[in-house]
């Protein structure tokens, strides 16, 4: 009896491990394929059919072309600008809000919180938002990708929850020493909240890096396009050849690998960062799943 059970259980363990490995392959393979295709020789790749087990030939031409493409370089620059300036604004405003709303001395924090949370339940809709941003004179400006995204309510709640967990005693002793709220926030609360700040940097950073819709509706000027919008033209609208500057036949061939190289260049920065923050964002996602 005991033997039979343990036999079945061992069988389950094998089955489970195989299943997990399969899922891992299924998750990672699309990216591996893209990596292989990006370093393949363009001509040989076009003749290849089916799954890629390794690069077909080897060539870094696609990457040279990515870094020669003015739109991609410009897009990189625009995205970096939005991410850096955006993150500064995000962290500043979110911590201001989270700090103020986590103070028990603030008598009106319940109604103020309600005022903020209500926006998670009800929105004016796409067109009214578009008209508001237009009315604010932000059309065709990178600020249209920064200011309307200044605070994410879900992140604000996350940070507020983290601030509330800091013992009051610290704050009170600082107050006795004559510290005002700004001093307490910058000298005591923020230094004690590095994990939640890491999560904020990751969440806000990823959302800026990956955002494209706002850029699509708020920007007409192509030189302002962020990376994702350039990527959209290359991947989904098939315009890779437009700026590559090569002759037609070569261009069509290069377009095939350029597409893959662009994906890698645009995705790798984030994939290099997130595993190191896993411990923190798991906790963040947890609070989020309950509250949001």
């Amino acid at each position, binding site marked *: 009896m005991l033997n039979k059970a343990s036999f079945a259980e061992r069988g389950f363990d094998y089955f489970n491990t195989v299943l997990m490995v399969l899922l891992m392959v299924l998750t990672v393979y699309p990216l591996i394929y893209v990596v292989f295709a990006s370093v393949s020789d363009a001509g040989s790749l076009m003749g290849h059919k089916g799954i890629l087990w390794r690069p077909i030939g080897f060539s870094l031409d696609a990457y040279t072309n990515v870094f020669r493409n003015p739109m991609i370089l410009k897009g990189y620059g625009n995205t970096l600008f939005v991410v850096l300036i955006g993150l500064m604004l995000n962290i500043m405003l979110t911590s201001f*809000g989270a700090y103020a709303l986590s103070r028990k001395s603030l008598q009106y924090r319940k109604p103020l919180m309600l005022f*903020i949370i209500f926006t998670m339940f009800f929105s*004016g809709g796409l067109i009214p938002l578009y*008209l508001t941003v237009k009315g604010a004179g932000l059309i065709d400006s990178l600020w249209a990708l920064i200011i309307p995204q200044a*605070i994410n309510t879900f992140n604000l709640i996350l940070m507020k929850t983290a601030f509330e967990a800091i013992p009051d005693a610290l704050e009170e002793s600082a107050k006795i020493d004559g510290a005002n*709220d700004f001093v307490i926030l910058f000298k005591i609360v923020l230094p004690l909240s590095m994990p939640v700040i890491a999560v904020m940097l990751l969440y806000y950073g990823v959302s800026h890096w990956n955002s*494209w819709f706002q850029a699509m509706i708020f920007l007409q000027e192509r030189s302002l396009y962020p990376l994702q919008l350039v*990527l959209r033209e290359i991947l989904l609208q098939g315009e890779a050849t437009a700026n590559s500057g090569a002759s037609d036949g070569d261009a069509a061939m290069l377009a095939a690998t350029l597409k893959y190289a662009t994906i890698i260049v645009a995705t790798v920065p984030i994939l290099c960062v997130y595993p190191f923050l896993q411990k923190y964002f798991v906790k963040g996602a947890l609070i989020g799943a309950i509250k949001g």
Partner: protein
Amino acid sequence: MRFRMGLLLDIRKNKLLYVMLLPVLLYYVVFHYVPMYGAVIAFKDFTPRLGIWGSDWVGFEHFREFFTGPYFWRTIKNTVLISFYQLLFGFPAPIILALLLNELKHAVFKRTMQTVTYMPHFISLIVICGILKDFTSSEGVINDVIAFFGGERLTFLLEPSLFRTVYVSSGIWQNIGWGTIIFLAALTGIDQEQYEAATIDGAGRWKQMMHVTLPGLMPTIIILLILEIGRMMNVGFEKIILLYNPGTYETADVISSYVYRVGLQDFNYSFSSAVGLFNSVINFALLISSNWLSRKFNDTSLW
């Protein structure tokens, strides 16, 4: 009046806190409450020259146009069906994965699995849809494999009958790992003594999973299910508009993508706002009721 006096007193007492709150509240007013006010153009014939306030009132004209128009049932049906399939296939997927991860004995392997399955959550939608389009194209990898086994090549994204399948299954790929986080956390909350008692009673691992682990997850499952149902009419347009095309509108076009197309491609601002407002009101009602329900089951809710 008393509210206002109290507020003034609060502001005087917490001057610096209100200094911090000022830009925060300003942000919410400008980018959330002003657009809510702007939604009145749903009841007007908006012309940019006259502005929101100056445009003529038309009452419920745009709503009537939508309700009686050809796309009302189509967009409702597509929204509900996509949500329904997501619920049916997408909702259980992370639960099953969490249960299986929980059975892994090798800690490093388990952690690696988690890191790997979180990955799609961080990849941009543009890249995901780009890869999807590339893989499912008639000369793409998936078709190469189908052809290898003697099947017929299909251009997935041009087939109306396959749109939901592609949308929902790629959604599972995107979310299965990230979705396990909450269930894995709930698993650590299960009382270890229950497992010991079950072992003494002779329950094997399968029985323990069915009679201890799963019931332990139930409260979390129910709450998330209720909240998910509350988001039933809220299918985002971003992935839809990246994947659909006029040939697949009949199965792909949801309310939000319709709002986008009519508003920002056809510049029919008022009509689009009416459809959007209709959707917002439904979402609001569903969310409030699901939130209320989840509070009845458990004290987890936003309010």
